[in-house]
């Protein structure tokens, strides 16, 4: 591998561009695959196979070739609505699991730098906050305020924008009420069912870190289910 090639990879990582490193295991040639960019002639004949592995986010030797592909896929972003006590534990789990984190809370006494050091906190109402965030099928939403004024607009946004995972904190009763509000706002049952509510797997714990653990465990489970 040329030193220049190493620098190129590091630059792409810094710019957070999704790409794949290609290696011809027969002759040691290296190449970079990026969506909608031309491939070097060594790899161009396998373009379709390379693209299909890239879409599947896979790394490995491509079948019937000597090409090793290593895909660099951006981490999942978790948007947490509610800068509450549970969120403080949730971000620690999320950080060690390599998720990106954004917190939204319009209440300035919750959304403080002191409570969430070095975290991207948006101190705005969800509708306004989402204007500033890029979301896609690699984004998860976890609403934690159980205040309809704050949670509902965020949940509605997520339902309309193909989020990877949507979870909402609250008791069974709270969740039933939430579902009927969403129904009244025009969402279909099939859409509302996508919300994990009450959020988290059943661990039995009631403390803030225990609830945070049950939520993050469910999210990880969903990541591997959808692979």
């Amino acid at each position, binding site marked *: *591998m040329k030193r220049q090639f*190493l620098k190129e*990879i590091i630059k792409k990582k810094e710019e957070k561009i999704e790409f794949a490193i290609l290696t011809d*295991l027969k002759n040691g040639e290296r190449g970079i695959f990026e969506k909608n960019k031309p491939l070097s002639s060594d790899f161009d004949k396998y373009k379709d196979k390379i693209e299909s592995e890239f879409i599947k986010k896979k790394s490995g030797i491509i079948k019937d070739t000597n090409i090793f592909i290593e895909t*660099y*896929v951006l*981490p999942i972003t978790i948007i947490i609505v509610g800068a509450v006590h549970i969120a403080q534990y949730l971000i620690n789990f999320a950080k060690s699991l*390599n998720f990106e984190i954004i917190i939204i809370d319009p209440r300035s006494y919750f959304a403080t730098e002191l409570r969430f050091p070095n975290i991207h906190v948006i101190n705005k109402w969800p509708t306004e906050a989402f204007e500033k965030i890029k979301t896609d099928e690699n984004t998860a939403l976890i609403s934690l305020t159980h205040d309809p004024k704050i949670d509902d607009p965020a949940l509605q946004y997520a339902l309309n924008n193909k989020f990877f995972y949507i979870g909402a904190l609250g008791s069974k009763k709270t969740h039933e009420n939430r579902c009927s509000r969403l129904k009244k706002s025009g969402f279909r049952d099939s859409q509302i069912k996508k919300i994990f509510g009450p959020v988290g797997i059943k661990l039995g714990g009631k403390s803030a870190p225990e609830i945070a653990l049950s939520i993050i465990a469910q999210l*990880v489970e969903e990541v591997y289910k959808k692979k």
Partner: protein
Amino acid sequence: MKNSFNEKILEEAKNWIDTNKSVILATVIETWGSSARPTGSKMIVNEEGDFFGSVSGGCIESSVIKECLELLKENKPFKKIEFKVSNESAWEIGLSCGGEIAIFLEAIN
């Protein structure tokens, strides 16, 4: 969860090269059965035998380092090595997980 964007092994390789060290990059390219680290796992080795990252759960690192140093001595650009270990003899050779693993070694120059 594994995310290649957060791994800093290639960045460390660049740091080593910047201090004029020769660096070999070892990448797991294929695994069979149970193996400790998934495909794409990396380790770098320099001429002094320092290493960073991993290609297994500590089972075969020493052999991989030896192979990397040989590659440097022979001045070869790359090499593929395999570790095939059965369950019974796994403890002798090192891959106690009983898996099989292929690693691509490559000099960065």
